């Protein structure tokens, strides 16, 4: 898959998805995969819940990046800290003592003027790319509902604000965001109705409302195919009441729950594969769709993150 190599060659990847689809897991897996390929990776949390670091079994990070695994740094977005850095770097304003009220004032303007807060967030990521501190910046981005406004913010500000420093800032941000060789978006979904529909809609909105390119769709929690056609016929024969009884006798206990569980697994897999087809049909021609298996794991941590990285690598042909 040629799109494969692209993903690790990007400088900035936003990972988004409907809530509950596992976008954080995928962001962590992607960071892990890139690090395994020798890249210096920064993985950024946007809602400061500490979920990313938990997937590396490391304590939560703050605005200052910290190495949480070999080759992987983590930070969590904080708009006030981002403003502080912004003022220091771009305005050279000596406001150390007054940052509190100023941040509050800024917060206020940001609440009033949509896009200002988003710019501080997106701007920080673009800044890291511009400064080349890392080979790859992976953003555990807001859910699908919010990502569009975040990515569209630099353009929106560019339209709303005709002069001023912010205007000058948005130009170079847009340059990074609009370059498909540098920036990409990965949408995560599960093979279920709502996530699939949302992903198809997102693909359209990203294309129409932002300058960022959608690089791939990751379908998470794909259940394994238990049987081929022949196996399924035999399975049905085993479920015949008489046969089941014989089998239970031989096994030394009722096999009914075991067979019932398999039937449930097959049904779930089948319902989900129709959603998967719907997804593929609804996405733009040529959009890479990467499948990640359902993880039957006791808990989620460094080990499952490596599993996700491994599956991602396989899907990417690495």
């Amino acid at each position, binding site marked *: 898959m040629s799109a494969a190599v692209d993903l690790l060659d990007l400088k900035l990847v936003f990972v988004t998805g409907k809530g509950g689809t596992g976008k954080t897991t995928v962001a962590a897996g992607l960071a892990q995969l890139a690090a395994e390929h020798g890249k210096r990776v920064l993985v950024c949390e946007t809602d400061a819940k500490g979920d990313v670091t938990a997937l590396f079994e490391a304590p939560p990070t703050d605005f200052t990046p910290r190495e949480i695994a070999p080759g992987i740094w983590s930070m969590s977005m904080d708009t006030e800290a981002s403003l502080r850095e912004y003022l220091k770097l771009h305005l050279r304003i000596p406001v150390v003592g007054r940052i509190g009220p100023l941040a509050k*004032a800024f917060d206020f303007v940001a609440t009033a003027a949509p896009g200002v807060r988003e710019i501080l967030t997106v701007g920080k990521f673009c800044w890291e790319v511009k400064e080349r501190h890392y080979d790859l910046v992976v953003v555990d981005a807001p859910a699908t509902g919010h990502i569009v406004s975040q990515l569209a913010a630099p353009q*929106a500000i560019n339209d709303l604000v005709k002069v*001023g420093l912010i205007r000058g800032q948005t130009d170079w941000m847009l340059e990074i965001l609009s370059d498909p060789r540098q920036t990409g978006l990965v949408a995560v979904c599960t093979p279920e109705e709502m*996530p699939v529909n949302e992903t198809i809609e997102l693909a359209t909105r990203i294309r129409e409302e932002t300058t960022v390119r959608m690089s791939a769709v990751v379908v998470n929690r794909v259940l394994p195919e238990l049987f081929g056609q022949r196996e399924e016929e035999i399975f049905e024969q085993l479920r015949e009441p008489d046969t089941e009884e014989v089998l239970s006798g031989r096994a030394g206990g009722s096999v009914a729950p075991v067979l019932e569980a398999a039937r449930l697994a097959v049904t779930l897999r089948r319902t989900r594969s129709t959603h998967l087809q719907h997804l593929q049909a609804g996405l733009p021609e040529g959009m890479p769709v990467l499948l990640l298996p359902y993880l039957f794991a006791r808990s989620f941590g460094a080990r499952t993150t490596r599993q996700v990285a491994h599956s991602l690598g396989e899907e990417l042909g690495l």
Partner: protein
Amino acid sequence: MTAAKNAGTPRTVAQLLAAKDIVIACGPGGVGKTTTAAALAAKAVVEQGGRVLVLTVDPARRLADALGLKGIGNDEVRIPDEVFAGAAAHPRGELWAAMLDTKQSWDDLIRAHAPDEATREQILANPLYQNISARFVQSHDYIAMERLYEIHTEGKYDLIVVDTPPTRNALDFLDAPQRMADFFSSRLLRWLIVPYRSRLVNVAARPFYQVADRILGTQFLADISEFFILFQSMYSGFVERAEAVTRLLSERRTTFMVVSTLEATPVREAEFFSAELTARKLHLGAIVLNKVLPEYLRDAKTDKLAQSMEKSSTELAQGLTDDPAVAARVIVEVAESFSNFGVVARREAEQMAELQGAPDVLVTVPFFDADIYDMSGLLRLGAQVWD
């Protein structure tokens, strides 16, 4: 809505609904919140009667289609009785539905509070206002609660089930009314409005303007000022309203229902949410856990059996079917699959144990074979939650 008023702590969702006017379904995204809210409203109409409204945010398309909600907006629409008849159910009351339209709701709010026609038109035409009303994420949170307040005040419904918008922070919508009030009472708002008149007067605010000017540009700042001057004319109306909305959320006849699955991340969010509701003295009526794997998957004896099936598959498969080799393979697959799902089921059970004890009612809903996209599906789900 009769009975159960003095029946003490409700033990079932049925009792809970009978005692409340407003049920707010909240929790992490992607756990079936919308469907659960719709299912409860439908079930309440069938079982308890009365006029029930489900105020939803973004239903799955097939669900919206099946309920005849296609293209509905802010105005409440009655679900025709035929939809119930199609599911062989007989409503004892009326089911209504409305879908939150953020932009429309904001416009309505402006219309209601603007002091005169000129101000109203100026605000509606202001580019900043359009930006806020259409795209502003937090406005979504506020407007959902605002809309609930409005509908509740009209008093047309016996029960309102609200499906909350997916928020970045699951609690944003709870804080939204207060934030809106703070926003309008803020000294900063006055600062922002001053430059339009005479900014040099205010010495305290001067550093703020200097920085704001450099960051945002004078023109943009002037646009913002104009917008707030217009908005300020609605100040008292807005603050009063936001405070009333906050009061409504903590009323005795309002309850919260946390919806989640037992997946690791949602369950943690649900836990956090439950704790926050309690800390705010809001009533946590029920926790509904969707897509829970069946209990038999956790059975230790069956798990052992599955393990031994895997080992002795060849002997077990002898002569049972017309192809013993394939049968042996199937037995291995089936046994492995059981163990796999068993791991997940046990993980889920642990998660659930941690949630227990918090709400009045804790309900689990099994993994359904198919998606829910019609009234029969909703009522099936409703029945699972009901008693």
